[in-house]
């Protein structure tokens, strides 16, 4: 899995590409942790290039989300489609996080 990061105004857009599973979830969670500790307090997770997510990927998102909450910041999800979106909805992660249809909508929200 590759992780791209881009500044959009005061927000950080994090785009994981490929598979978020038991192999890649620890790295992804560590990267988000570094971002949050480094002062990123408005983070949009762009899911548009994610091909696959398992419960380990969801756990990484949850842990990062809790960390962000302790830092009194905002972390939202955006642009999930197909089966990735289905996994997020079945798990109720559209209640755990705001889930926006696009990165632009998430930035405006």
């Amino acid at each position: 899995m590759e992780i791209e990061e881009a500044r959009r105004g005061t927000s950080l857009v994090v785009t994981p590409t490929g598979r978020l599973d038991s192999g890649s979830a620890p790295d992804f969670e560590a990267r988000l942790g570094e971002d949050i500790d480094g002062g990123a307090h408005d983070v949009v997770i762009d899911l548009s290039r994610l091909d696959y997510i398992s419960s380990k990927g969801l756990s990484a998102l949850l842990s990062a989300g809790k960390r962000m909450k302790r830092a009194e910041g905002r972390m939202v999800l955006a642009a999930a489609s197909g089966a990735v979106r289905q996994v997020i909805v079945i798990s109720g992660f559209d209640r755990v996080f705001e889930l926006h249809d696009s990165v632009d909508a998430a930035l405006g929200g």
Partner: protein
Amino acid sequence: MTTTRFDRVFKAEHGAIATLMAAFGSFAEVTSLPADAVFKIELALDELMNNTIDYGYPDGDAGEISVAIERLPGRVTIDYADDARLFDPFALPEPDVTLGIDARQPGGLGVHLVRKLMSESAYSVERDRNHIRLGLVLDDPS
């Protein structure tokens, strides 16, 4: 189309998950499985295998997992068996997926996903081994 079968045995260790995914990927291609079904089956196998490996051998014993998949017209069946300690994952209570972030704890979602994404899921003990039988009805019945 004729029935096509995948039948493999794996060591119960994390490194075997990627091997299974690669082998299943080839099988899915040969049998023209739709992308949505591939995702769901990969997820089910991934979750079951991680649970077996993470919790099934508390004494650190070596283990064995067998996976048999049949591609039938309009449906796929999966037989997953292991020699881990006997445990019915479907007997676990359903996680409360209505909770917000503060009340959520990591874990417990893997089995929930398997149950929700598959059309059928059942557990049995056969010859002292855990057996999980899954069925997935294909939307496109080709």
